């Protein structure tokens, strides 16, 4: 009986061995009135956030995360969002489709469908723009985890493996730094924008983190799908 107890204790002890990445603590939490928020980005004019949902909806919120607009058209499984001065770029994971919504009226203007035959729910999870390389970036969630570079016409030009994470759920380029978010590992990776090698890692105490962006003041913002909340941290 004692041996069984010791074995169980050893197993639990091993299981609680923690990693050495820096742990972040949120300073503020906001409830998102968005069902299943799966990614978030700051608008180009830094006056709004755009949030997409697993149910295929695109929302605009103010800086306190209150919904201000919603696109009329519905997709299937929106998982990535990025905005510039003219368009809101939305990635549909299941349909492998990027739709460009006009920022002015949130109506779809054009789009492109990528080819990827992997699992329906293990496809494109993010969308951002790498200004260093002038390429759009999307990530394959898992099986295997990959970073894809897309050209200005949203066609694939390169792929990079990223085996350091169990999965990737979001990506964000901010002030010359590239950040990747892992949902299952609950980790943020800062990577080199040129070759995506890891520079630094942080751990966040957020369940099901699926979106990463930065506030106009430079605070880290993480959206949680299961919690339907936005967590605001100090600048990295």
């Amino acid at each position, binding site marked *: 009986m004692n041996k069984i107890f010791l074995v169980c204790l050893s197993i639990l002890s091993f299981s609680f061995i923690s990693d050495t990445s820096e742990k972040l603590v949120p300073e503020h939490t906001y409830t998102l009135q968005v069902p299943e928020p799966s990614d978030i980005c700051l608008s180009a004019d830094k006056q709004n956030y755009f949030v997409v949902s697993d149910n295929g909806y695109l929302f605009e919120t103010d800086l306190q995360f209150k919904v201000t607009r919603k696109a009329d058209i519905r997709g299937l499984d929106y998982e990535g969002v990025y905005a510039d001065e003219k368009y809101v770029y939305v990635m549909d994971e299941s349909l492998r489709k990027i739709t460009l919504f006009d920022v002015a009226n949130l109506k779809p203007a054009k789009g492109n469908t990528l080819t990827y035959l*992997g699992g329906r729910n293990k*496809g494109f999870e993010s969308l951002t723009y790498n200004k260093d390389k002038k390429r759009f970036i999307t990530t394959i969630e898992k099986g295997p985890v990959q970073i894809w570079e897309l050209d200005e016409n949203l066609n694939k030009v390169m792929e990079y493996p990223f085996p350091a994470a169990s999965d990737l759920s979001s990506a964000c380029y901010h002030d010359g730094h590239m950040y990747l978010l892992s949902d299952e590992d609950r980790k943020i990776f800062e990577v080199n924008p040129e070759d995506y090698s890891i520079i630094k890692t942080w751990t966040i105490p957020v369940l099901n983190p699926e979106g990463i962006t930065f506030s106009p003041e430079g605070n880290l913002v993480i959206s949680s799908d299961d919690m339907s909340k936005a967590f605001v941290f100090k600048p990295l």
Partner: protein
Amino acid sequence: MIKRLLQIIVLLTITISANCQVSFSNGSTVTEIQTATVVTYNHRFYDSTERNHKKNGPALDDARIAIESRSSKFEFKFEFDLAVMGNAVLDPTAPPITEAYFVYKGLNFVNIKTGFSKIPFSRDNLQEHFDMPFMSRPELDKSTIFARRDVGVTLYRTFWNEKINAYAGMYSGQGESVLTTMNDASGSAEFAGRVDVSYPCKYKYIQVDEVHSPIPIIQVGLNARYINKPVATGYGNSVFADLNHEKSIMGFDVSGAYQGFTFQVEMDQAKIVPNNISQLDGFPTTYYRTGGATIQLNYHSKLLRSVFAVRYDELNPNDLTQDDTRKAVSFAYNYLINSYRCALKVQYTTPFSHFTKDAESALAGFDPQLSVAWQYWFR
């Protein structure tokens, strides 16, 4: 020997990394092909005098293939299990088709699901068995007191950021045998409904917390179903379930997750008015009760890629019969090579009441048994 073992491990690793699931998109609809294979070895601990050991040995438990299509307005799924087609005689209560349904999502207030699929009753029933720690479900949820699937219509929707799930449906009442048997003379239907609430966030129907939730999550579910069939022709696959006239069942479940630990508790109780009055054991009553409970604790270790689980379950087939409650304790260990997409499962189940070592026992799950399974699940 060690070299050979290493070769096998390397081959397995290559196979595991293949990620065989495939999907196709035309820009508005995506279609996915999923597969699952489970190979098991069962060993029962028979008395030394028992010469019939036919239930010991390897078996193909699942050989499933599914085709699933989705768009913003609809879902379609067709899944069949080729493993049961190897049987000399097809069991009408375990048909080769396991899912064949269509969902319309075009209405904003409710989704409509129609076809052959799981009845929204019992949290355990609603979960895929591939990502459960145990290979076999508790006796309570093995179609002993209720059918798990049927043809019918289910209306469902979520509330409060998916923290509340609500289901209501009408079904043939024939259970799994609806695919091979005509309805009974009454032509009556079965009605079922379920509501579950989770807090502080939505909680999927899972048993293992692979992501190690940083906050405690709890879910409480209530479900009920009612059927009145004067001449039942095949309801559930239990030896005592197909003789009933009127049956109403209530069920309750509570489950939770925190930091890799999870638990599930479920209780179901049926009130049955039988056609066969011998089931009343001569008591001055028109009905009897049947039901049971299951309690399960699980722990997932990320470092060890392992799941440890223990489960207690009991089932009382007839409350008018003395001392016939079946009780069992089961232990499970899972090694997750690639999550539950590729896993090795070990389960040991031992009864501590109603002990039978009869090789022909209809309630075979109540023989002490050691099972080992290897599963591939591409979805």
